[in-house]
């Protein structure tokens, strides 16, 4: 199970491969969950923006499951030491509570560091894509198209490394 915060969701709905949003390809048949605060940040506050409507469509299509607030519980006390957003706090809290079965996906470096300090499994969106291709859940060629499509977002090094990992796949 993958718990997304808003950063990879926003990025994957803003870039396209051909005429399809990256999210529509990358998230297909993956078990992706978002928390109430992420829903509010991305869907509610996104309103009728075309990219926000893509995100809303992913929920309607069942690509993403919106998790109920009762499943999250109170935010982890350790998070008070950091200036994280509501969605990131909920994602970290749920992923921590779920233990080994859950992986948080974020492109926020601070959230990524906090997740690592908490011992929570955490991936960048690029690693989520590479991981899916590695497990045979996404064709390697399609994964390469996705990585190239989102490349403007990442600092140098991240994209060539991801492409190299994908090229090594059998």
């Amino acid at each position: 199970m993958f718990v997304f915060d808003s950063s990879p969701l926003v990025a994957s709905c803003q870039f396209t491969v051909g005429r399809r949003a990256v999210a529509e390809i990358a998230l297909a048949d993956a078990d992706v969950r978002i928390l109430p605060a992420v829903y509010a940040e991305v869907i509610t506050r996104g309103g009728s923006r075309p990219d926000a409507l893509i995100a809303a469509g992913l929920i309607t299509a069942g690509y993403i499951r919106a998790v109920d607030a009762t499943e999250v519980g109170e935010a982890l006390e350790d998070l008070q030491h950091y200036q994280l957003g509501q969605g990131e706090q909920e994602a970290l809290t749920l992923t921590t509570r779920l233990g080994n079965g859950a992986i948080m996906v974020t492109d926020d470096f601070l959230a990524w560091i906090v997740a690592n300090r908490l011992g929570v499994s955490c991936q960048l969106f690029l690693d989520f894509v590479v991981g899916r291709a590695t497990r045979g859940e996404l064709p390697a060629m399609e994964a390469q198209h996705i990585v190239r499509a989102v490349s403007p977002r990442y600092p140098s090094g991240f994209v060539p490394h991801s492409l190299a990992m994908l090229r090594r796949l059998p």
Partner: protein
Amino acid sequence: MSLISIRMPEDLEEVLRPVLERDPDKGTEWLRAGFEARLAELYQQWQTLRISTARFAELLGVSPWELADLLRARSLKTTNLPG
């Protein structure tokens, strides 16, 4: 350009009203300068990992989509990943 109303604290109104009556465009200038200054301050905090991406958007009062638009429009980095 559209016309919007915003609440102003009394102490500020005393100072600003006479200026705005003489030069209504000053309000636009102040609004832009204030917003850009706040954006620059938060961007700095975000790049040095004092705040996260979602917190950046919350403190600026925009959605994550709008934050991405604002950063792109100014040719700023759209992530706080190093490099």
